[in-house]
């Protein structure tokens, strides 16, 4: 194969030189340039390319572009934290766990419906009473501030100022049984297995 290639090349060269020599001696070919004219031959007559300065910059630009593409690919939106209350665990869907549904008698279901309505009425009364109580308290305070303004303007302004020491205000709410004076709670240890999610 290489023999054929070299024969081809030789043929090409011989043809070229033949054609060139026919035209005249002035034709210069890069193949057979005389040594004297080495300095002014075609490839050496152009300015040398300034590769050393442009290359680093080009390389840097290329690297930055690649980095940006990588970052865009890596930008995954953060995984949402699952709300455990909304996920029904598969344990609950197990068929072996269903209760035998007891059928309600007609009186029972009627009784329940009537009780629900009574409860509705009771809660509404409670709410209206609450709203009225709050309104009357607000009215009493408004009157008090009016009277105070009549008495003295500076006391009124002092009363209007917010109290910075009031908040944060905490109060322990009502419990089922009152606290005992001398009660020692039993010592205990527990393992906290709540799952903590981080984004």
């Amino acid at each position: 194969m290489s023999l054929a290639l070299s024969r081809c090349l030789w043929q090409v060269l011989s043809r070229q030189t033949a054609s060139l020599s026919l035209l005249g001696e002035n034709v210069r070919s890069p193949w057979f340039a005389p040594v004297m004219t080495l300095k002014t031959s075609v490839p050496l007559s152009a300015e040398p390319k300034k590769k050393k300065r442009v290359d680093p910059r080009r390389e840097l630009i290329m690297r930055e572009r690649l980095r940006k593409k990588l970052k865009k690919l890596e930008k995954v939106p953060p995984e949402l934290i699952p709300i455990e209350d909304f996920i029904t665990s598969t344990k609950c869907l197990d068929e072996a766990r269903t209760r035998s549904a007891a059928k309600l008698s007609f009186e029972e279901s009627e009784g329940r419906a009537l009780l629900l309505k009574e409860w509705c009425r009771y809660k509404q009364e409670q709410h209206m009473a609450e709203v009225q109580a709050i309104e009357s308290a607000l009215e009493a305070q408004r009157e008090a501030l009016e009277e105070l303004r009549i008495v003295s303007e500076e006391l009124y302004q002092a009363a209007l100022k917010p109290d910075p020491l009031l908040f944060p205000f905490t109060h322990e709410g009502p419990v089922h049984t009152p606290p005992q004076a001398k009660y020692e709670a039993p010592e205990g240890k527990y393992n906290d297995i709540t799952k903590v999610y981080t984004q």
Partner: protein
Amino acid sequence: MAAPCRRVVSRPVIQFLSSFSRTAVGKTGFRQFSSSSACRVTLQTQDVMERATSPYSLVAAVCLQRLPVISADYKPIEQQFRDMMLQMELEKSVLSDHELRLLEDAERLRRKLADDYDSDEEGSHDDQEIVLAQDLEDSWEQKLKTFQPAPRVRDDLDKNLNSVERCLADSLVLLAEQQVGGEKIWLLPQTQWQEGETLRQTAERALASLPAAGFKATFLGNAPCGVYKYKLPKAARTENSVGTKVFFFKAILSDSSPSTAPNKSIMWLKKSELERYLKPAYFMKVNRFILNL
């Protein structure tokens, strides 16, 4: 600064006071309300004299409340509803692990006691045979019984009006017996206002000056929550003092030292019991801002 203010609002003050004395129903022996015309006359004369301070002396009182310590008992309808809700929730639920275990144990026991029992069929259930779920339940009940909670209702304490630990399910208001113009009456603790302090500081002073000390209270804000005005009887009226304005400030008892012996001069009352001990006109004003929530 107070003088021009007063001149500007004098007319509405007259109208307000006249309307107030018309509507108030006070028939107390000590505080009397003059007729509207007399009130108008006195104010006009004062207006003419252009006094720097208002004719009413200022007094600040504190309404100290002890919030409920235990939850209130269920009313009948609440109890009924609660039972029904628990029943409904039980019906709609699925069996828990503990219940399943109970059922399995009962099943296994039933099979053991049956005539054709073959222990080889059971397989290796060595651990579960030793401790049944029923035994666990019994041991838990035993543990609960060893704990003795404090009683919710103590009748002897409830009847003692001076103790702060009565009626733990309701919110109580502090009343003190104080001398006002020659009479000892039950009212919310109050003192006279002094120059250079705000009314809230006066209220704090009123609380601190009670003979039964040791009340740690959180005052709710700088603004008064109510006002009560009264005029002195005509005999005691002078040019400078027509009456008194009492401003009430709300406070919540944060922590009372239980070591203080109940004092006879202070009372802790529920909202329903207040009417018996306070003067009618005073009670009408005070009842508005004491919430039973």
